[in-house]
């Protein structure tokens, strides 16, 4: 049986390899900090297997996580000069390969879907081939590996170092932003252990009239929307609002379909991202990039759409999630 943990080891291992490449890259002025950051993530990925199975203490991993946050937060990470092709080479190659270039990229979601849907029917010696409950995640991993093979064959690229170096450059370009979703999920868990969600939930039930499903839906969606505007990030709003209203009220009390409630709730948060200057990389940076005089131009263009979609999300959740 293929286990999810094996896949996590593969991801951790590739982070470790890329971290080693980062340390040896002299074009990066902060190569040691960068290497340490990604090395810690990679090692953390592998060590986590035993933490998740409760066979190893979680405290050292927690210390490592805070160290990663400090490394990135105090500016010890940077990026080297990527070794890649020139724009002319890429234009020529695009002209030669055409839309075939999309094939490997599309392989990933196709394989992931096949694994997610079909895995239940494939078994080996009475055991399912893919670990139960992790089919989607394993599908993604298998899809990525298959896509890499397809890509290498299609492009007639024989050097394995090429994709590894490209992947490393992309990691460096994304930098600390890569770790943020995981940190926010961690923060959500800490909020939960410390009772933040319960407190917000108590406030919410104080405001909420009893047994009014539709008002509860509105409170959850508008709460996601407003929290996202304040924080600039739906990921940060999600754990708080879900612990407060989404899970206990909509799913627990009103027996909503968890997948529908949570997916639509997150999308209600995205409506907030469209209109907040706090989401600078989507709203303020493009204004600068496009040389707009009004830095709120994109936000103004998005405002009516964001409002309409918030209403759509509320309606979708109210109609289909219960």
């Amino acid at each position: 049986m293929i286990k999810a943990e094996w896949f996590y080891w593969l991801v951790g291992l590739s982070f470790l390899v890329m971290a080693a490449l980062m340390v040896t890259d002299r074009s990066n002025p902060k190569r040691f900090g960068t290497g340490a950051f990604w090395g810690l993530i990679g090692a953390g990925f592998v060590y986590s297997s035993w933490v998740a199975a409760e066979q190893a203490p979680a405290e050292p991993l927690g210390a490592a996580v805070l160290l990663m946050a400090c490394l990135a937060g105090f500016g010890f990470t940077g990026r080297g000069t990527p070794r890649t092709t020139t724009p002319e080479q890429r234009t020529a190659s695009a002209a030669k390969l055409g839309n075939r270039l999309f094939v490997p990229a599309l392989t990933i979601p196709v394989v992931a879907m096949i694994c997610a849907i079909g895995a239940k029917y494939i078994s080996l010696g009475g055991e399912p081939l893919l670990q139960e409950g992790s089919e989607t995640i394993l599908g993604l991993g298998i899809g990525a590996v298959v896509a890499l093979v397809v890509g290498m064959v299609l492009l007639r690229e024989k050097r394995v170092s090429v994709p590894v170096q490209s992947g490393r450059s992309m990691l460096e370009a994304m930098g600390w932003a890569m770790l943020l979703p995981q940190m926010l999920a961690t923060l959500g868990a800490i909020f939960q252990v410390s009772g933040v969600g319960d407190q917000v939930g108590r406030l919410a039930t104080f405001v909420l009239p009893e047994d009014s499903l539709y008002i509860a839906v509105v409170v959850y969606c508008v709460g996601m929307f407003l929290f996202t505007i304040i924080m600039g990030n739906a990921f940060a709003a999600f754990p708080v609002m879900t612990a407060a209203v989404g899970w206990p009220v909509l799913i627990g009390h009103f027996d909503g379909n968890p997948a529908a409630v949570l997916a639509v709730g997150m999308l209600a948060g995205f409506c907030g991202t469209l209109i907040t200057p706090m989401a600078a990389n989507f709203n303020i940076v493009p204004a600068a990039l496009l040389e707009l005089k009004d830095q709120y131009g994109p936000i103004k263009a998005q405002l009516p759409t964001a409002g309409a979609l918030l209403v759509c999300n509320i309606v979708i959740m109210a109609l289909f999630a219960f």
Partner: protein
Amino acid sequence: MIVLLGVLVVVIGFATKRNPLLVVGVAGIVTGLLGGLSPGKVLAAFGDGFANSRAVTIFAITLPVIGLLERYGLQEQARNLISRFARLTTGRFLALYLGLRQIGAAVGLTNVFGHAQTVRPLAVPMAEGAAERRYGQLPDRTREKVRSFSASADNVGLFFGEDVFLAVGSILLITGFVNTTYGTHLEPLHLALWAIPTAVCAFTVHGWRLLRLDRQLERELLTAHAESAAVEAVK
């Protein structure tokens, strides 16, 4: 009630534009301690949180293949693909861009389009070019509007396309958070399917607004030209 100060730390941290990783780290420590956890327990909470939310970061496994394809001109080919539609009107072109962006994001190609890669070098010149072909020189105010709407087409397409792809951060964040916190079992695939109705709404609403942009431009530009023609006549 006092644990809510942790939320305040997050709000203040993001509002004052501190590094988000530090903000989250500090908020976690403050909340944990206020919530009555010992320092050791706080560390363990960070460790457990990291271990249980690894799924959020696994999309990194797709980076080598995407990087390889970009080396061979994936972004250039994406540009070739949209430049085939150069003869459309501004609104129709931007609606098409919205659709392509949404489909791209829905199959995981979140980096193939984007403000720096395609909006500035490609979508904006084409959207402006389409208006200029019809109405001649654009006044600054109209130019700003076309550019703002080009940026919006990229954002709306990305936000409401990517959640249909099951390996995107937000889907994995939802499953990671809920599965560890409440001990349930949610599949990313089901969440991704539930993102489809909103994706359709987003395309309909924003696409309609983009198509309407054509009429707005027509009205604005005809009055602007009439005015300048009147000025010319007086001269």
